[in-house]
């Protein structure tokens, strides 16, 4: 029996199996998405309630407010998505499967990204209507996508770590936020550039920062992921 080869599952098919499992579980309960959405709206409301900014200031902070909202909602999503894996020991189940660890990373990252995009796709128009700003700017949307990819790639890695600690519910934002602040700042700056119709030369450095961080974070996360899921 021993050393003869058995056919392995296809790399991409396995990734899709994981993503599909997450999406279909979510489709049934819709609890994660609805939680992220309601939470996003609450953050926006609380922002305005406690800050009481005047109109002029409001426009200047659109990108900031949106990104704070996305990152808090994102943590919620990341936490939950990994907690599902940990609850009945499912993560062990995944780890027992004969797939590369990077398959697990990409599978989870993809479904996390999908949740993030769905939330953004709803929050951005709602925000645009509520505060009467035009957000349908291709550049702005592109930056949002770029920023989300970077955020989710570190986020998936960190949430896989934090969920295995005793203080899992509290540790994720603490570990994640300081690391992604460069991404958040660059995304906010670049978005503001598009919203305020600045020159490309003023926007491009931030886009570069975003691209560099995306590449670095994705590469590092992908490379070290097996270190954080194995005992």
């Amino acid at each position, binding site marked *: 029996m021993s050393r003869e080869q058995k056919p*392995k599952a*296809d790399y991409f098919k396995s990734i899709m199996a994981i993503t599909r499992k997450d999406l279909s579980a979510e489709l049934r309960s819709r609890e994660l998405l609805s939680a992220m959405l309601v939470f996003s709206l609450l953050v926006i409301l609380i922002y305005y309630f406690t800050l009481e900014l005047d109109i002029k200031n409001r426009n200047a902070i659109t990108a900031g407010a949106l990104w704070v909202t996305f990152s808090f909602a994102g943590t919620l999503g990341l936490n939950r998505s990994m907690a599902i894996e940990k609850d009945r*020991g499912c993560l062990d189940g*995944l780890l027992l*499967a004969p*797939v590369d660890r990077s398959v697990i990373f990409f599978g989870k990252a993809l479904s996390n990204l999908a949740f993030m995009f769905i939330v953004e796709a709803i929050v951005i128009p709602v925000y645009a209507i509520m505060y009467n700003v035009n957000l349908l700017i291709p550049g702005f949307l592109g930056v949002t996508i770029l920023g989300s990819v970077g955020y989710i790639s570190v986020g998936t890695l960190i949430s896989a770590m934090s969920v295995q600690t005793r203080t899992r519910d509290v540790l994720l934002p603490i570990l994640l936020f300081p690391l992604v602040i460069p991404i958040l700042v660059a995304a906010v700056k670049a978005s503001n550039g598009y919203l305020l119709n600045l020159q490309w030369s003023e926007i491009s450095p931030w886009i570069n920062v975003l691209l560099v961080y995306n590449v670095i974070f994705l590469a590092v996360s992908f490379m070290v992921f097996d270190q954080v899921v194995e*005992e």
Partner: protein
Amino acid sequence: MIEVKSLIKRFGLKNVLAGVNFSAIPGEFVVLLGPNGAGKTTFLRILASLSRPTLGSVLVAGFKLPSEAAEVRMRLGVVSHNPLLYGDLTAEENLDFFGRLYNIHGRDSRIHEVLGLVGLSARRRDLVRTFSRGMQQRLSIARSVLHDPDVILFDEPYTGLDQDASEMLDGVLKSVAAAGRTVVMTSHDLARAEDLGTRFDVLNNGKIENSIKKQDMGTENLLAYYKRVLAG
């Protein structure tokens, strides 16, 4: 086939496993006995590639751990203290998901088959989180044999099973062992262990303190043997 040499596993400064030597050949059914906290679960988790050995060499199904883990995993069926199932998916969806990862051919019919085996066909469309303890354990067993593994590692698989399910599991284990698979199981139920096992190893104080084949036991029953070993 399993071969473990001078395996050490340390938690902090505590040597939970302090030099375990162990081997099992195809067709052998090893029951791992030992008091609470002896390190049985720890040992099985290492064999299952879920935990890394601190020191020592481990060979499972002919492949080295941890370096050739992926090959090992393909040939491994595991039941652990946790069900390893998604509460938000139905029984069927859980098996379908794992079936994909294991790249099983004729997935649907195989799932149908194992669900029947563990007696959950009628509940296959129910969410796992509404299952009782014993039902989760049944599904967990179905999951572990789905891909017809060569090596079976079962950590107290009888937990929570009722009479029917226990008899089903007896049957599964016997047929698997007869088919030349390697089985390692822990259990505190000596009567059952005696009935199933072909070999009995006692893990205590971080070592395999004794190992005996069933045909060498003579008239002594397993309980007496186990107590004698523990008494030193």
